[in-house]
Structures are given as C-alpha cells and as structure tokens.
C-alpha cells in the first residue's frame, strides 16, 4: 500500500509539537515524525521503535543536548 | 435548536434580540442594585448557575468550580445574602457593570433562546477596587411571565488565577 499514510495525531507539550503518521512509502511501514515548529521530518522503523520501548532512564539524555544536532557548537 | 447563522448579512430577529438584551440588562441592574429576590425570580425552577475555574470548559462534576449551583443552592445563596450576616457582603460591595456584545447564539423549537454577552464589573469594597471581566452565556426560556434563565454560565477572563472573594452576584 505504497503512498498510504495513516495519521496518528499530534502530540504537543510546552517544549515541542510533533505530528505522527504511519508511512507506507517504503517496503515496510515506518513512523513518520514531523517537527511542527520547523517542518523537519524524521522516520523510525519498527525495530528502532521496539528498541525505544526498552530505553533505560536517561538513555536519551545525550540526544536531548541541543548542541548535539540542531544547534551545533561548530556551526 | 438551530444555530443562528454567522454569515455576514444574515437577517436577525431584532425584536427577539431587543427582548433578550433588555432581559440581560435588567438582570445586570438587579445584581448591581442588590435586588436579590427579583434576581432570583429570573430563574426557572431547574436553573443552573455555573462559574467555572481553571478554564471555561471544565467538567463541573469532576473539577472544582467557583460556583456550580442548582436551583436549591441558588435559593440558599440568596437566603444567605438576606441574613445580613454574610460578612463578605456586609456591607455589600458597591457595584456597576457594563454588559455588551449581546448576541443571539441559537433558538430552539421549544422557545428556548441561547444568548451570550461580555461584561466588566467594577466592584468597590474596603479592600479596594476590583475589576471582574468575562463572558456570560444564557439559556432563556419563554414563560407566561416573560423570559427566564434556565442556565447561566459566567466565564471569568482570569478564572485560572488566584481571585479575591467573589461574594456578590456575578
């Protein structure tokens, strides 16, 4: 069912707003995440999502550092 | 109940609008001038008087409200004011309110009319002057004695903040 997109809804907090969609453009389904503040889009496949379900406390701390990716120190 | 069209140029029932306006202005005067019994007589026997807290659309059966009176509790409120020992209104606040933006919001086959209006109340007490602002929404019923309120909801602009005592009729 390539091209079909199943909207899951919007999740917002005071810190972020994302829109979630199940995307079928590829050979298998993926979670499509759109950062509604910038329009930036990322994808997570089922194995990545399963891994996230097992994240220990603090595993995302490094990624939550603003200068790691978006506001890079060397930019 | 069918909603009044919001489309520009829609004809409105000006007689009804004037009647509703006069009702709301009279209610405001009864409140300002401490005509407690005449105000209470504006209610139907199943009236509900609601002043929500922490937002305008909470569930009053699950969340606290500033006022959520059924008809019996409206009567108690008036009786308490009449005792002369309701200290928070003894002496009563000096009050004047402006009511504006009166709008018909819908009309039902059973003669019920929904209306909305904005208000500002200037309250003077020993503590000082307090301004109260908000929007009232009414459901009005046609009775042999004229229009009567079966529902009044008062959405205060600052209902999510700490408020001074509100013991007069809002």
């Amino acid at each position: 069912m390539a091209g079909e997109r199943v909207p899951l809804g919007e999740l917002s907090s005071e810190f972020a707003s994302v829109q979630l969609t199940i995307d079928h453009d590829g050979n298998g389904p993926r979670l499509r995440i759109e950062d509604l503040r910038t329009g930036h889009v990322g994808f997570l496949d089922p194995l990545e999502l399963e891994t996230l379900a097992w994240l220990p406390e603090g595993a995302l701390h490094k990624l939550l550092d603003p200068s790691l990716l978006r506001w890079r120190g060397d930019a | 109940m069918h909603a009044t069209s919001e489309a520009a140029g829609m004809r409105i029932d000006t007689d009804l609008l004037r009647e509703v306006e006069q009702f709301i202005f009279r209610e405001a005067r009864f409140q300002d001038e401490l005509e407690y019994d005449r105000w209470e007589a504006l209610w139907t026997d199943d009236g509900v008087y609601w002043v929500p807290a922490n937002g305008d659309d909470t569930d009053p059966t699950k969340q606290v409200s500033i006022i959520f009176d059924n008809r019996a509790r409206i009567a108690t409120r008036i009786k308490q004011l009449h005792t002369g020992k309701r200290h928070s209104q003894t002496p009563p606040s000096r009050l004047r309110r402006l009511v504006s933006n009166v709008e018909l919001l819908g009309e039902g086959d059973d003669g019920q009319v929904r209306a909305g209006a904005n208000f500002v109340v200037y309250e003077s007490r020993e503590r000082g002057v307090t301004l109260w602002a908000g929007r009232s929404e009414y459901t009005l019923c046609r009775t042999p004695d004229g229009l009567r309120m079966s529902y009044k909801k008062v959405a205060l602009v600052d209902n999510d903040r700490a408020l001074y005592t509100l013991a007069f009729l809002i």
Partner: protein
Amino acid sequence: MTSADLANRWDSLIEPGRVHGSLYTDPDIYAAELERIWYRTWVYVGHVSEVPEPNDYVLKSIGPQPVIMSRDKQGQIHLLLNRCSHRANLVCDAQKGNSSAFRCPYHGWTFSNTGKLLGYPFNSGYDGTALKSELGLGRVARVASYQGFVFGSFAQDGPTLEEHLGAATDAFDRLVRLSPTGEVELTAGWLKHKVKANWKMLVENETDGYHPQFVHASIFSVADSGIGELYGDKSVAVCRDLGNGHTENDLRPEFRRLDQPLGWFGTDPAKVPGYVDQLTAVHGDNTREILIDGSPHVMVFPNLFIAEIQLFVIQPLAVDETVQHVTAVQYKGSPDMNRRMLQQTIGSVGPAGFLLADDSEMYERNQRGVHARTPEWLTIKRGLHRERRDENDHVIGDATDEVPQRAIWKHYRSLMEGQ
C-alpha cells in the same frame, strides 16, 4: 534590622497568652519567616496523584518560590526550582505536562526532569564542558512523602518528615482510612483564593473553634448544618496541640456521642451504598466506627490544612497577601462519595463559597484592624485555665479554646529563635 536584633525581639513579641500585632504587619519579620520557616522546615508541596505517570510534572510552590514537582521515569519524585541556571528564566510555563526534559524558552538550555543540565545550544561558546556538571536546576534539598503527601525542606539537615509530623501522622492515616483503597487522589483541580492578609491569620483560623458560630452564622441559619453545634458551649469536642505547631479540632467525642455513621459529612450510609459496601469489604465490623469518627480537622504547620473533605494549601506572597489553594478530597475508586465531596466543596469554599468567603473577609478585616496602634497585642488566653492533657500527653482544651493558637505561636517562636 539585623538578625541579632530580631533574635532578641521574640521575647517582647510572643508571650504565652498574647502576641504582638507587628508580627502580622512587619515586612522584616515576614522576610525572617521566609528564611526560618518556609525555607527551612518541612512544607507541603503536592500529592503523588498529581503526577501519576512517569515524566509527569506540575507547577507548585513553597511560599513565593516557584517549584516544579516531577516524577522521573523510575517513579521517584523531585522538587526543582523553576529557574533556569543560565539567566534565571522560568523553565516551565505550563501548569502541568509530561516530559522527560525541560527546555528553557529563552536560550534553549535543556534539563532532565531530575534537574540535570543536559546541554545548551552552540556549546563551543563555552570553554569546556565543566558547566554541564555544575549548572543543574536548583532543587529543594530534601523531599519526603507521607501517605502520598509530598513535602519539601530547603534545609540539608534537620528533623525527618516523620519527626516533623509527629502526632499529626495520625491525621493522614485517618484521612486515607476513609478511602476503601486506602488512597486519596487530588484530581479535582484547585480553587485559588487570594486575600489581603498575613498568612498566620489563616493558619490560626483553621483550628479556631471559637469563630464558626459568629463568622458562619449566616449559612448555619439558612442551611441545615450541624457544624455550629459542634463548636458550641455544649459540645464535647476538644481542641489539641499535636506538637511542632500542628493543631487539631477533634470532633470525634461529639460524633461518638451523636452516634451517626457519616453524620460528620451530613449524610447517611443509605445515600452512598456503593461507598459503604466498599469500605465494609475492607474494614468489616470496624466500618461503623470509622464512619462515625469521620475525617480529621487538622492544621499541619505551616501550610496544609486537612479540613475533613477539603485540603487547603496556604501560600504567603507578601506580608499582607496570601493565596489559599483548595481542592476536594477524592477517595480513589469511590465515585458516589467523590461526587458528593466535590459538590459540597464547591458550595463551601473558594472565592464564592458559603463558608470561605466569610472567613476571608475576616482575614482582611483582621489585617486592617491590627494596624490600629493600641492595644498592640492580640489575646490568645481563652481556655488557659482549663488546659489539660490527654492520654498521649497532648495539651487539649474545650471546643472553643485557644489551645491551637498558643501551640502555633509556641512552635513559631522556637523556629524563629533557632539558629
């Protein structure tokens, strides 16, 4: 005034039977109270049911201090100061939410919900990474809870929460015992009622059994309420000094004399059969006694008032400005009882409440009155001649006596004098 001057002043301000009016009006005394009471002793902050899920947070306060109460992924509760360690912006703005991290809206500094600084944008602007380990969110030094009630203390050391609560722990035990699940939930939201009065006016009034017949005469005369008689001269109820500034109006003797299950709540078991069945399943033959004794009326110093079916949190904002936050007690899993407790709460308390509007009027008149120059003192001698001790060696008095007020001031003085 220096703190040494203040230390020498307490003798001349607080006596066993009277207190000086300036205690309610002097900004220097208020400033000293913040340091010695609010920023030192255990202060009630919030309830675990307000952050039920991992990564939930809610904005709270300790006096004028803005506090974030968060629950981390492991379930542990943290009390953090809502102040970015960079340039002091408020980090959280929403009243509540769910997030494992907080990102300051000013420059993007990002903190875990345990207070750790995770990073800031464009990190090459700082020389090295030492900042990261140094600049977490400020935190309330000690956090502890009792029966789901979370308290914070800014002092690194001092009595434990249970030592501080002492005999008042029994009030929490009695409160949750009325819930068939043994848990209460504070899920009904808070009314925030502001008064132009010193915070101690409120604390002293909560367990003042002398005022109801006067201040609340209007509602007692038009509504079918038995509250007035509970505090009458024929009442066998007592007031009690629970120690550490905690005080009580113990109405159980009167309720036991009346011998009516749920009489304390103005209803009877036939009206809430579901609740009574639930409670009976847990407590069996003891249920009747539990329903007769009812819910506690206890002021936990300095800011939590357990008022039978309501909880009040007292928040001082200035020497003459105080906010009382109030919510309805809800028993986890008892919808029929919860509905009634909520509706009774809405009727009684908050800015338009049949009871609290008049209490609040008294607080404000009291605050204006205390500015008058003479007689300078407030008298709290009522029942001094008939004080006695109960079987637990607590000082008690008759229903309308000023044992609680004397107890509050005694503890207040010990805190203000303490180094």
